[in-house]
């Protein structure tokens, strides 16, 4: 069913695409594309951080060995060759060999080759290298625990070694731009700190000017090895407030605005000047609570809370169709997202009350959630929580919302929590390794990322099995099974899957937002006004 649907959708999409192009003719070269982005990067060193706001700002300037095609109109974004044209893995799954693209140069003119790739991986893995960077290293190995080292085979052949097999390796380095390549010559010239003020990559755009918090001005890289952008220049203008982004779009100051407020979607859809996109985001809005002790350690309490949440009204009325009711932990655009799963829990406040009556908290209880607006560019976060607050009130559960800054949110996420302490955010990344990170029993905070301290022996077993899976498909299959156990265990409170509303002026052609945190609008072109 879902296959037929997606084939149909693709066919229709292609049809629409071709008819549109036929009318408009050839893509036009030239012009400046101005994009209102959601956030800015603290500096220009793409290897040091792992936040999408930083990666988004820098992705047009850099390339990875492998990448994902963020412009593809498919259920999830496929892995494509980047600076490596092909790759293979050894029998034991511990050595990956990359055949590198020849004739590629960095923006400073220095060549890209196996030495350059090796230099970059040394920066992340080799503590003895003079250019080892602690922050880049901890970011790289924090995600890929087994990343061990690298080796130059010949000028255009390069190997990466893992301590243990990991079928998700290619998936990870394709999805996370902190593994992208920086010019070794530039790092040597500026040093590990100062490189943060210079962006020297191989990407389709070159940096012209970056003023933190105000603008990133980029121009087309005429020597780019791949598909060259149509626009001469692209400007990123970070506007943090959603209302201000829409105002800028309506006032004609930007061509594209990311993350539109929910209530602006409908009016913009009816406005002939704009296109609105509701594509999806591989993240799920969740409330995550401490389960090692306290009320949420009881599965019946968790289930009752899940039953009390009216996800349908939340998605359709409160969030005005900019999200769909949560069915699972993965989000739309994630390769593991299963469109056929039913709603996470049917809305049944009466049943919830009854179930709660069986527990140690028959008259309800109180808890608090910590949320950080900086953490959630996704539209309507606070409205959603206030709605859930009212939902839970109906079964006697008192949820207090504490809006805090990112520093406090981070501290709360990473600590052993109080019995009544929860955090809420959009869980999910552009690659689908969220289960290991959040639900593996041996990884409770503060030593791991299982911030609820969720425990389920069967889930642990399936994940361990997945580590030694022979293929990514098998890995995904095992994780789907694990997810089903988590769902049955009411192991989390997923609310909705966001559709991430994005808008552009009609003048912008061939732009389709990625179903991802990462966005690359650089291949759009501007029609004559």
């Amino acid at each position, binding site marked *: 069913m879902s296959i037929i649907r997606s084939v149909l959708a693709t066919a229709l999409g292609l049809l629409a695409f071709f008819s549109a192009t036929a009318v408009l003719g050839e893509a036009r070269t030239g012009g400046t594309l101005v994009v209102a982005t959601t956030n800015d990067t603290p500096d220009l060193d793409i290897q040091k951080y792992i936040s999408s706001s930083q990666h988004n700002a820098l992705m047009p300037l850099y390339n990875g060995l492998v990448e994902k095609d963020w412009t593809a109109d498919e259920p999830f974004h496929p892995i494509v060759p980047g600076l490596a044209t092909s790759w293979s893995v050894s029998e034991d799954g511990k050595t990956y060999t990359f055949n590198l693209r020849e004739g590629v140069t960095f923006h400073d003119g220095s060549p890209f080759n196996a030495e350059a790739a090796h230099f970059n991986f040394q920066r992340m893995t080799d503590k003895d290298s003079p250019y080892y960077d602690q922050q880049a290293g901890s970011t790289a190995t924090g995600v890929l625990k087994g990343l061990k080292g690298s080796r130059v085979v010949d000028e255009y052949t390069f190997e990466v070694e893992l301590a243990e097999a990991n079928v998700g390796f290619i998936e990870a380095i394709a999805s996370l731009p902190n593994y992208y390549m920086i010019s070794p010559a530039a790092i040597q010239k500026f040093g590990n700190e100062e490189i943060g003020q210079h962006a020297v990559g191989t990407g389709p755009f070159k940096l012209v000017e970056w003023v933190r918090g105000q603008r990133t001005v980029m121009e087309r890289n005429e020597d780019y090895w791949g598909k060259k952008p149509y626009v001469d220049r692209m400007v990123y203008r970070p506007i943090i*407030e*959603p*209302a201000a982004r*829409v*105002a800028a779009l*309506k006032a004609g100051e930007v061509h594209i605005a990311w993350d539109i*407020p*929910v*209530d*602006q979607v409908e*009016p913009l859809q009816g406005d002939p000047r704009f296109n609105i996109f509701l594509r999806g985001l591989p993240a799920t809005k969740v409330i995550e609570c401490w389960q090692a002790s306290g009320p949420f350690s009881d599965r019946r309490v968790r289930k009752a809370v899940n039953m009390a949440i009216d996800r349908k*009204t939340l998605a359709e*009325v*409160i969030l005005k169709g900019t999200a769909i009711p949560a069915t699972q932990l993965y989000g739309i655009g994630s390769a593991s997202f299963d469109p056929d799963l039913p709603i996470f829990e049917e809305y049944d406040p009466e049943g919830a009350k009854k179930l709660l009556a069986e527990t140690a908290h028959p008259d309800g209880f109180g808890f608090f959630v910590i949320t950080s*607006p900086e953490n959630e560019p996704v539209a309507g976060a*606070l*409205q959603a*929580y*206030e*709605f859930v*607050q*009212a939902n839970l009130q109906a079964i006697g559960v008192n949820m*207090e*919302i*504490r*809006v*805090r*800054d990112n520093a*406090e949110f981070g501290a709360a996420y990473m600590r052993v929590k109080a019995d009544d302490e929860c955090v809420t955010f959009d869980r999910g990344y552009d690659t689908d390794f969220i289960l290991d990170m959040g639900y593996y029993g041996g990884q409770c905070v503060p030593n791991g990322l299982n911030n609820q301290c969720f425990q389920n022996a069967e889930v642990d077993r399936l994940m361990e099995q997945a580590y030694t899976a022979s293929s990514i498909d098998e890995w995904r299959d095992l994780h789907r099974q694990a997810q089903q156990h988590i769902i049955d265990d009411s192991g989390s409170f997923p609310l909705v899957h966001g559709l991430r509303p994005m808008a552009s002026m009609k003048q912008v052609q061939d732009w389709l937002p990625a179903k991802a945190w990462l966005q690359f609008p650089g291949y759009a072109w501007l029609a004559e006004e």
Partner: protein
Amino acid sequence: MDRTDNEPIPVAAPTGGSQEGGWPRVLSGVRSHQGIAVGAAIVMAVVLVALLAPFISPYDPNEIHPIDRLKGIGTPGYLLGTDIQGRDMLSRLAWGSRTSLAIAVVPLAIAGLIGLLLGSFGAYGGGVSETLIMRGMDVVFGLPPILLAIAVAATLGPGLFNLLVSLTIVLIPPMTRVTAQVVAILREQTFVEAARASGARDLQIIFHHILPNSVAPVLAYATSLAGSMVVFGAGISFIGLGIQPPRADWGRMINDGREVLDLMPHVSTLPGIAIVVLAAGFNFLGDGLRDLLDPRMKV
């Protein structure tokens, strides 16, 4: 007198001309009475709304009606429309008046008391003790109030109580300074001299003569700051460091309606108007009272 000793508090809207003679100083008493009347009427009206909030609110201010989100003014059942959660605007505005009044009154009252004590003891002695207290204020509170408020919010966490604490801290130095100035005038007055001549001890003089006579002018000055406090406090909530959802607060309500300002302007506009009106009421009242009660105005 050092000019900076009597600076208005540098928050959102310092009321000008405290020492140089504000508006009413040169006016006939008629106008200051008019100002008091208008100001008092506005403030009393808001106080009345706050007291009667449970009775005039058609709904619980936090009760959401998802189906009735963003209804306009005059929608049947919702006299002033609803907000992004379908909460009744009238009820939220009524209940929100309580937080705004609390922000206007509580920090000023507490800081006023502290200021009265510090200021009167400091200034009565004059000389070293006065310099010590005044300069101490400058040193410890040499910070921009907005910065202090943000830092306190980051440290204690947001919320009504912590907002009141941080506003109180912000207000202590100006209240102390003003008391000191009033006391400096009072201590030269004949009745104080007389008391001193009749052998009263300093402590007696402070409690029987200085303090009672300082209360009225300090109160007047405090009233003139209340309007700024309403605006400033709501601003802290507006940027998310003050009142927490779902509690009704005018500053938060402006922020709530921000994303739909061009579609459903009432959500942001009504609380904005409410703030302006209440702050203007306090400002009228403060101007008038200071003209009547502040001896520094009549020097």
